[in-house]
């Protein structure tokens, strides 16, 4: 007999997910450097030099454009700072790293396969003001600004030098072609000595190829350096992720509340709407029945049948409401509500719930949901003849034990019901432990923190 125990749901002390940046900072393995180191000769004839050149060239263009933009924003911004618009321009300059970072993270994929996680959190609103407020508060924004400034200055300067060297090398390499095809007697390798024969120009090609080789290796090194810088400045850090975990936790809690409110609303709508209408309908039909009493007409029989059908619809509606959020749970608390659902269960249920006080609404609702889910499961699949529900508050924790004497073998991973239950529990930092060996018994242990 195999014990199929499993803990579903996240334990309370779940760590935030390890940032992908850990591997970057732990053991930096920039793809281009790795390629350089592993097979230096092969590197020359691979796609790497081309990719690096494309990266550096586009980086230089981007950096130059950025330099102009930043300069314009700064000058105009400072000049107009007495007016409101100047401040706005300066603020724009401050957040310019955000779009630059986004572009750079994508551009980086040309030369490195590791995607960089976006360091920014989600926004609190859709307006531009909300965007500015959120972004200006984030450290990542200022790191990205640092990256943007160095892109506009250092990278641009180095890039211009590199592009000049690359251009010269290409030019030298193709000198024989130029001499032969386009302009004999006008090209000079050494000042004052025009070359008329392509063969004479071959030393130029040699020098050019040498230059290209240097450019290939230098390009690889430079790109690697820029990748490292980007990893350092553009990637999400622990602190970004931590604040996002907090933010996610909060939004998840809000979601639970919204979910709960929605269930109550549905219950109330059904109660005030459809249920009342149906009751009124049965009443009218009952009156009609009364009027027709004594008259032996087929109509009386039809009306009686209609009333039966309306009654059935009411019963079904009531069952539905009980599954959502019963009124008795709100009015009389968990013990009464569970006793109620236990009475209704096809398999006998013993209930033993001891509470020193009413539990918080969210916990009550969660516990009730757990019980109905467990009872449904046990009644449907286990073949049990008895089920027991025990509930206790232990310190800050409410624990429910639902045990049946059925055949066991419940698979918490396969069943959508248990899976959903575990997910809902996880939201409230609770957990579900299922023990269901083949042959039974099956025990569900539900733990929810009361201060949730």
């Amino acid at each position, binding site marked *: 007999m195999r014990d199929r125990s499993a803990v579903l749901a996240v334990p309370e002390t779940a760590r935030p997910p390890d940032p992908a940046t850990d591997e970057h900072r732990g053991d930096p393995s920039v793809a281009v450097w790795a390629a350089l180191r592993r097979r230096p000769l092969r590197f020359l004839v691979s796609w790497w030099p081309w990719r690096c050149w494309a990266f550096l060239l586009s980086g230089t263009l981007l950096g130059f454009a950025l330099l102009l933009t930043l300069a314009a924003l700064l000058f105009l911004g400072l000049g107009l700072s007495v007016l409101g618009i100047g401040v706005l321009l300066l603020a724009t300059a401050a957040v310019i790293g955000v779009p630059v970072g986004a572009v750079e993270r994508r551009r980086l994929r040309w030369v490195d396969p590791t995607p960089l996680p976006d360091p920014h959190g989600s926004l609190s609103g859709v307006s531009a003001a909300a965007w500015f407020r959120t972004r200006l508060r984030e450290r990542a924004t200022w790191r990205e600004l640092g990256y943007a400034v160095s892109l506009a200055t250092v990278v641009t300067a180095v890039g211009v030098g590199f592009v000049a060297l690359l251009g010269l090398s290409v030019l030298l390499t193709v000198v024989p072609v130029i001499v032969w095809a386009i302009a004999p007697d006008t090209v000079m390798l050494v000042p004052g000595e025009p070359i008329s024969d392509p063969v004479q120009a071959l030393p130029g090609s040699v020098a050019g190829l040498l230059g290209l080789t240097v450019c290939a290796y230098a390009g690889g090194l430079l790109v690697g350096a820029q990748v490292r810088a980007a990893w350092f400045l553009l990637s999400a850090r622990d602190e970004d992720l931590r604040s996002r975990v907090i933010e996610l936790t909060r939004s998840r809690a809000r979601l639970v509340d919204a979910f709960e409110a929605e269930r109550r609303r549905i219950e109330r709508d059904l109660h005030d709407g459809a249920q*009342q209408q149906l009751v009124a309908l049965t009443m009218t039909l009952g009156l009609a029945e009364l009027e027709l009493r004594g008259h032996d007409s087929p109509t009386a029989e039809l009306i009686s049948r209609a009333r039966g059908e309306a009654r059935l619809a009411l019963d079904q509606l009531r069952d539905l409401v009980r599954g959502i959020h019963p009124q008795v749970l709100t009015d009389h608390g968990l013990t009464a509500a569970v*006793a109620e659902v236990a009475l209704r269960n096809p398999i006998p249920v*013993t209930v033993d719930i001891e509470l020193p006080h009413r539990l918080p609404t969210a916990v009550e609702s969660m516990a009730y949901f757990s019980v109905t889910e467990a009872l449904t499961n046990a009644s449907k699949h286990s073949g049990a003849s008895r089920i027991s529900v025990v509930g206790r508050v232990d310190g800050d924790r409410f624990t429910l034990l639902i045990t049946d004497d059925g055949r066991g073998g419940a698979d918490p991973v396969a069943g959508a019901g248990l899976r959903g239950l575990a997910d809902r529990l996880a939201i409230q930092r609770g957990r579900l432990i299922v023990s269901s060996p083949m042959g039974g018994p099956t025990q569900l242990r539900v733990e929810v923190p009361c201060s949730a």
Partner: protein
Amino acid sequence: MLRVILAEDAVLLRAGLVELLTRSGHEVVTAVGDAEALAHAVDADRPDVVITDVRMPPDFHDEGLKAALALRARHDRLPVLVLSQYVATAYATQLLSGGGDGAGGLGYLLKDRVGEVSEFLDALTRVAAGQTVIDPEVVRVLLQQQSADRPLGRLTPREREVLALMAEGLNNQAIAQRLVITEASVVKHSSNIFMKLDLDPTEGNRRVLAVLAHLREHAGH
């Protein structure tokens, strides 16, 4: 003819109930939509019987039930019939155990019951006459769960039938009529039941309450 004060927040249902009661020859003194108005109406003009919904404005919890209990505390032996959407036995118990010394008629009926017009009117008359009426559905739910349990296992099928009717609030005479047996044999059955369940043979509300309490208590064990 009974003078009735009615509290029901759903307009459609309120109008329907007024029509039903009027057609059946009763007088609806006032029909109100919330618990506070109900209390005012009863204080101003005491009726023969009060009919109230459990759930009413402003909070839509058990305002109607609480108002009924408060009214019974103020007006001695005021008969109250509570209509509920739910088979929740917790409400029925709350009503019965909160009813003071148990004097005065009490009823807990599911709203669906108003569709069975003659049954509903019969229940209303019995409540007005000081008897206790518990919805058969509520009793059925309690008994159904009981069938597997030991204490009730000792009862004969006939005794169980008598118990169900007792829990609904019928007196011995009505039970005899319903089961087409003599009142003497009902008395015999009921004393057997009380002996086997170890209950105190009492009358009226307290008898029903004792039976309900027993059923509830043993439902969970």
